[in-house]
């Protein structure tokens, strides 16, 4: 490469680095604040991790713990108190149960639908597909109230079902998988038919394994959306704290006697965010490896 090219590449990288910093800054603040003491946070001092001086935390004492228990380093306190104050593991588990159930049922529904829309010839297929596209245009918030009323009538408010059921049919999933299945050669499906597979066996044994990359993309979309969703759980979980999902749990740190204690709040947010980031990193590796259709042509 010549010097000129290096400069060109340099510009690109400079712009990307600035973009990355803008995106990462809130995360940096979150992690930093989850490690520092309240005074350091409020006076915006102490750099990334603060001085980490052992001290006694007044809010802790006010809550009813002994002074001895409340004396420790800020990072210890923030994470300890976050877990003391709210059942965070329970929230995380709820988050896992809800997002995984949603994703699995979405796949169970979307794959056969997408296969039928992409590869089977039947009367009205184009109409059904245009309905799928039409449903993509409906905003969730527009139908939230009728949905809530229906769930309430069915007596499902304050249950896992209320969190899961409305999301089980994902038109976006159907659309995404249908577009991917369009690229799978018909001959592969014909070969499976000649080998003796039925249509459902084709969906699960041939289409599903070839669609892993697309499915992962959909998984990231679906899991992130429902893990982070605040709007819907807030609507249908009205009283039962045991059903709180992580975003609802974070809300526990707002208001009340200790209204502005950011340390434990940020600590809880870090705990809630980390599983997603780890999952994303793992998925990303698989995503890039992906099973390609190189075996086909």
């Amino acid at each position, binding site marked *: 490469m010549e010097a000129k090219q290096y400069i060109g590449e340099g510009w690109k990288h400079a712009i990307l680095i600035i973009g990355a910093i803008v995106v990462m800054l809130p995360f940096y603040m979150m992690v930093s604040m989850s490690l520092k003491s309240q005074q350091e946070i409020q006076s915006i001092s102490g750099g990334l991790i603060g001085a980490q001086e052992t001290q006694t935390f007044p809010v802790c004492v006010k809550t009813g713990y002994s002074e001895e228990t409340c004396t420790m380093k800020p990072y210890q306190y923030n994470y300890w108190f976050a877990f003391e104050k709210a059942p965070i593991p329970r929230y995380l588990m709820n988050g896992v149960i809800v997002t995984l159930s949603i994703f699995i049922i979405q796949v169970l529904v979307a794959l056969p639908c997408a296969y039928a829309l992409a590869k089977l010839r039947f009367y009205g297929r184009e109409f059904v597909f245009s309905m799928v596209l039409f449903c993509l245009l409906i905003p969730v918030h527009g139908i939230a109230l009728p949905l809530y009323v229906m769930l309430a009538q069915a007596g499902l408010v304050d249950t896992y079902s209320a969190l899961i059921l409305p999301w089980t049919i994902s038109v976006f999933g159907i659309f995404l998988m249908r577009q991917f299945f369009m690229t799978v*050669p018909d*001959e*592969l499906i*014909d*070969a*499976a*038919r*000649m*080998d*003796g*597979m039925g249509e459902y*066996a084709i969906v699960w044994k*041939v289409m599903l*394994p*070839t669609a*892993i990359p697309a499915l992962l993309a959909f998984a990231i979309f679906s899991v992130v959306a429902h893990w982070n969703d605040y709007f819907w759980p807030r609507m249908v979980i009205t009283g039962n704290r045991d059903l709180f999902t992580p975003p609802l749990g974070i809300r526990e740190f707002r208001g009340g006697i200790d209204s502005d204690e950011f340390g434990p709040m940020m600590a809880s947010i870090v705990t809630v965010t980390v599983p997603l980031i780890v999952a994303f990193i793992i998925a990303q590796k698989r995503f890039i490896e992906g*099973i*390609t*259709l*190189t*075996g*086909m*042509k």
Partner: protein
Amino acid sequence: MGTISLKNISKSFGSTQVLNNLNVDINDGEFLTLVGPSGCGKSTLLRIIAGLEQQTSGDVLIDNKNVNRVRASERDLAMVFQSYALYPHLTVRRNLETPLRLRDYNAFERLPLIGNFSPSKKEKTESINQLVNKTSETLKISELLDRKPGQLSGGQRQRVALGRAMVREPVAFLMDEPLSNLDAALRVHMRSELSELHNSLKTTFVYVTHDQAEALTMSSRMAVMIDGNLLQLDKPQEVYDNPSSLSVAQFVGSPKINIFKGTADSSGMISFLNVNLKRKSSESNTDLHIGIRPEHLEITNESNENTFSGTVAYRENLGSDIFFHVNIEDGSNKIIVRGLPQFTHQISNGSSVNIKRVSDKALLFNQAGMRVQFTNA
């Protein structure tokens, strides 16, 4: 046994007629090639035999049983596809096993984990393994069994696709242009391997191709299809020597047959250009198409009433033969003449040549393109 009969098969997609009342009887153990230009309906016909496509009307009989309502998987046929269609996520071994597992295991035994508790599964697994090993030895792919299709070359994938078809020992093999994705050298090599395979398996092969060379070299009989019609079904040599119509004559043979405009006079005597054939056509007083293959024309020094002359426009040297593309003097035709290198190597583009025909080799076609016979008078 593996006889396949097609009776009055028609197929249309919407208003487009793709197949037009076809009747074919395929004998047991035969290598039948369906050949024709692309879009002639040959692949559709194969898919109808396979059961992947439903005919608009007509019957398909396999071993004299009507299979119109039988699903593809239950017709006991195996198919090799142009793109091989191997399962990309499975190893070669699993690819070969798949049709056997689907045939031999019952629904319970196919379940993951708990399926292994079935008492009969072990025995079946063993027989599947044996069949897979036997097939992979026949095709020399034993060392590839643990690879994924993505890690194989085109030729290897081709073999695996053949293997997947063979393991089940079906009543007939259906092949849809299986060699067209290979490079030229490998294609020629695989032709002979397929022929050998056919000889050793003695199973019915139905082979679809647009390449008339494949049809001529491999098949015991070839069916020439053009525009959804079956024009001729016969032994390859017979189709080449005795085409039933002008379209067949033009499709079969490379380079293409030369067509001259000629006439038959009131007594049936045939003439074209300045040449008189000295033979009589069964149709008299009419215009005719006279077909002469490039190898039945010679470049000569003579100039008499049996020769005509032209200018060489292009010289195509294949090493063993040289084909001369010649513009005939009156400007009516461009024809191709085969020359032997030892006699014609000095002839270059632009030189004018005399051309003589080998007697007794001309083919006559009437205005409708149908074959016209000579009379012996």
